[in-house]
């Protein structure tokens, strides 16, 4: 599990955990509204850098523009997307009933720590593994990522680093 | 080394007298300038410290009725009708009644500008030169503005923003040339303001640009700006697109075209925007672009001072904005002259011409007095300044 803050926005602490062989994605999906988490389909995330780039954008929009979704965690899904279509962002990055690998992102006001501790593992029926590039590389699906971010056919990345570069650019330049 | 005393004045006098004739656009200007002999001007780089005295500086502007621009033929006729009278008046004001003896050199605007008006003044300059047997000097209009500005403000090596009816240029001096660093790619800013004034049918007296400035000052909602195209391209800028767009807005306003959501409220149809708002937005937009290309040129030659010349330089808002920019750049300074010199005048032509004369640069054959509508600032070899 990663616990960190975005240097420029220390008022919020981010807790990011990764689960594999999850069997109750359908159940989680139905109760999504009750939890202050973002649940992300790990197939769509190729590196920690991609996810952190999106979280950075969440706080930029929050502090200097306006967030377009209900909460910071839902905004995280939108900020992952290459366009500002909220519905599509949720559909693409959110959990599907059969999602096996799940990323769970918690955004907690730093001063509320540690009170706001919620035991995620009780909710997610799967095995928690280290949230790192190595696991993400295993779980991500390059074709889905190519489709979501509409990579040009001529762009044939031969490393995760190159995929990350393209994806981070799209995230930073979303929809404006 | 620059020796500004290369040529000595007539009859052993210790001062030079130059008569300047300006008529490149709708302003006819006659000026008489006196330079005392100063020993320190025999060396060093002091062409901006001639202790010039303006003995006379008379101007008559050809004003056209509101909604109309000035045509070359009519402007030339105006200049022909008034020029001789103004020369006589200027000579009297300066206390000279024997010009062939009192005057060292006759300077006239060779270009750039409108052909017919330039030509009508050149005819008179040539005639006086032959009658009085006094040498002639052809002056570049823009260099006239620059040298007058430098002499009045004592700015030694400023970046020059030349903004008038016919020109929009950012100029910096280097290696004996006034080099153009950025310029308009289509219409000059003065021309742009004048044409918008015509669309608004506001008076041309004292000048269309001045009247736009007054309307802009009366703008009520200064925080809500009308968005206009911002077209700076590297060191250059273009204004024809902005003019076309704001003209269409003004016409929609006059016709009460309710479909234009920008001008009329969707539901109530109430007018949201006034012509004062249009004038204010146009000025803020055009001036912001001018200052941006000026700042870019200043960064390029790392200068922190700006001299604004040309008729539009009288605009107080432009001067204000330029001052803010200069202050932010290692608290530089902006220099501007008042409308005696900012607007086309004869004294500026006399000043620049006298500098050329003192360096021995005079017309040898009348063919050199043929006027030219196109006369780029960097075509002139600036002999009166250090390399």
């Amino acid at each position: 599990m990663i616990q960190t803050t975005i240097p420029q926005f220390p008022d919020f602490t981010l807790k990011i955990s990764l689960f594999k062989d999850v069997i109750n994605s359908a159940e989680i999906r139905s109760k999504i509204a009750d939890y202050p988490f973002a649940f992300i389909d790990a197939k769509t995330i190729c590196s920690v850098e991609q996810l952190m780039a999106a979280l950075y954008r969440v706080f930029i929009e929050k502090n200097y523009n306006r967030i377009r979704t209900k909460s910071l965690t839902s905004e995280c899904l939108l900020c992952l997307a290459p366009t500002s279509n909220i519905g599509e962002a949720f559909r693409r990055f959110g959990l599907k009933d059969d999602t096996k690998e799940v990323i769970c992102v918690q955004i907690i006001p730093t001063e509320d720590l540690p009170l706001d501790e919620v035991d995620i593992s009780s909710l997610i029926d799967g095995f928690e593994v280290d949230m790192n590039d190595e696991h993400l590389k295993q779980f991500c699906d390059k074709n889905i990522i190519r489709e979501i971010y509409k990579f040009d056919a001529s762009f044939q990345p031969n490393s995760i680093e190159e995929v990350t570069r393209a994806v981070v650019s799209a995230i930073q330049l979303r929809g404006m | 080394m620059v020796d500004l005393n290369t040529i000595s004045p007539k009859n052993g006098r210790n001062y030079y007298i130059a008569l300047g004739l300006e008529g490149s656009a709708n302003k006819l200007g006659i000026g008489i300038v006196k330079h005392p002999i100063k020993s320190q001007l025999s060396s060093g780089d002091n062409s901006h410290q001639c202790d010039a005295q303006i003995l006379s500086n008379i101007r008559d502007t050809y004003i056209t009725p509101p909604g109309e621009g000035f045509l070359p033929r009519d402007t030339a006729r105006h200049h022909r009708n008034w020029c001789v009278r103004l020369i006589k008046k200027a000579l009297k004001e300066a206390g000279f009644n024997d010009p062939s003896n009192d005057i060292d050199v006759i300077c006239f605007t060779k270009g750039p500008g409108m052909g017919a008006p330039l030509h009508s003044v050149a005819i008179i300059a040539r005639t006086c030169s032959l009658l009085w047997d006094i040498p002639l000097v052809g002056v570049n209009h823009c260099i006239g503005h620059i040298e007058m500005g430098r002499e009045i403000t004592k700015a030694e090596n400023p970046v020059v923003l030349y903004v008038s009816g016919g020109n929009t240029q950012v100029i910096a001096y280097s290696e004996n040339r006034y080099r153009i660093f950025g310029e308009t790619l289509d219409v000059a800013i003065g021309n742009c303001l004048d044409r918008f004034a015509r669309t608004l049918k506001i008076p041309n007296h004292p000048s269309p640009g001045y009247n736009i400035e007054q309307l802009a000052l009366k703008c009520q909602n200064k925080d809500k700006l009308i968005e206009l195209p911002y077209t700076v391209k590297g060191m250059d800028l273009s204004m024809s697109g902005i003019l076309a767009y704001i003209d269409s807005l003004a016409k929609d306003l006059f016709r009460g075209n309710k479909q234009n959501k920008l001008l009329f409220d969707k539901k109530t149809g109430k007018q949201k925007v006034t012509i004062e708002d249009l004038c204010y937005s146009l000025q803020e937009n055009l001036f912001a672009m001018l200052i941006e290309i000026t700042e870019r040129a200043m960064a390029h030659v790392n200068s922190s001072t700006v001299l604004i010349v040309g008729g539009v330089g009288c605009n107080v808002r432009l001067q204000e904005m330029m001052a803010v920019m200069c202050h932010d750049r290692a608290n530089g300074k902006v220099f501007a002259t008042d409308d005696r010199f900012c607007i086309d005048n004869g004294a500026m032509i006399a000043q620049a011409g006298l500098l050329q004369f003192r360096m021995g640069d005079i017309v040898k054959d009348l063919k050199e007095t043929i006027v030219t509508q196109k006369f780029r600032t960097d075509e002139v070899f600036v002999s009166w300044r250090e390399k």
Partner: protein
Amino acid sequence: MSNLHHTLEVKIPFKDNRLATTAQKVMATDPIIRPESFQVEYMVSEDDNGTLLAKFSAEDDRSLRVGVSSSLSSILTIIETMDELDSV
């Protein structure tokens, strides 16, 4: 001069040869813009003293009229300058 059939010769009397020569020099300076349709030559006449001779030729009456009127208005300006400002 081949096809410039429309011609006109104007004699302008000046006080003396000095002023006539002055006028001739001033007017002869400027180039002809469209030589194929209009030409003019200025000379100080030998026989009558102090007279400027202007020989106009043009391809049609319109360009002749336009050319002549513009020259004459310049010459008028020269004369006014002489009247008002000649120091002699």
